[in-house]
């Protein structure tokens, strides 16, 4: 289909609803873990579940999954820059 060739893949309704349910489930897990097992698991949960949720939104809702490698690379570069900047500054502050 020409439209698909020019404008990319159309995400089916079913996939969108599945991703939404998964996001709600992950939110429930995050809230549960952070409140019940706060001392041990709150930070690990924050650092794993939260980026996973963001990734789901990026890949499916923002259809990054079906974008060209160029755009994927740009997004990766921007996020990597952010992580490196935060990581380096944070390590400086933490060991002062």
């Amino acid at each position: 289909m020409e439209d698909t060739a020019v404008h990319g893949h159309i995400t089916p309704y079913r996939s969108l609803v599945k991703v939404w349910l998964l996001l709600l489930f992950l939110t429930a897990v995050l809230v549960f873990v952070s409140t019940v097992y706060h001392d041990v698991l709150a930070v690990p949960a924050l650092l794993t579940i939260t980026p996973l949720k963001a990734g789901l939104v990026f890949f499916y809702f923002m259809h990054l999954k079906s974008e060209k490698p160029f755009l994927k690379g740009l997004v990766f570069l921007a996020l990597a820059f952010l992580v490196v900047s935060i990581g380096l500054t944070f390590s400086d502050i933490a060991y002062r």
Partner: protein
Amino acid sequence: MSTVPLHAHPVHKDYEGAKLGTWLFLFTELLLFGGLFLLYSAYRAKYPLEFRTGGEHLNMFIGVANTVILLTSSLTVAISLTAIRKGNRKLTMLCLGSTIALALLFLANKYIEWTGEIRRGIYPNGPALLKLPDGEKIFYGLYYSMTGLHGLHVIAGVIALSFVLDFVRRGKITGADFTKLENVGLYWHLVDVIWIFLLPLLYLAA
């Protein structure tokens, strides 16, 4: 010589360029909020107990409810894009309308939450805030800055989505030309992503 001029097609549309431009704008947004996230992490490392106490006093129920609201609004905007591309104008408008309604609901919750905090005396130079230790003052400062800046983005999103809804109604956004809807959708999803990070940082910090 051909009688048709080279620029016979009067409207130039660059679908890929528009999308790339939107993403570049979103990168600047990531760095804007990224700076605040960095500030948050640095001060949380310095004042772990104060941040914990601060988080305890926030309304976790509203925070979680607003997460569900924004996740759902992301779903409706994503559905509206699929719907317009499948030629279902009615579903597109219904979903965009729902997204705007959910965004307004989010803001109403934010209003209830903020007025609650303000009534407790927690606002810049507020009597209760001034009595708190430095770490908690910083926590609330970051709380107001981050949720406030995010709230401004929600308001901007409501305005942009309202224009998009009107464009769809007037037939200016169609299954063949949906760039505006797609790009406003991308922006809205990013507003959602930022909130995904704010929930554990502020409301689940206790």
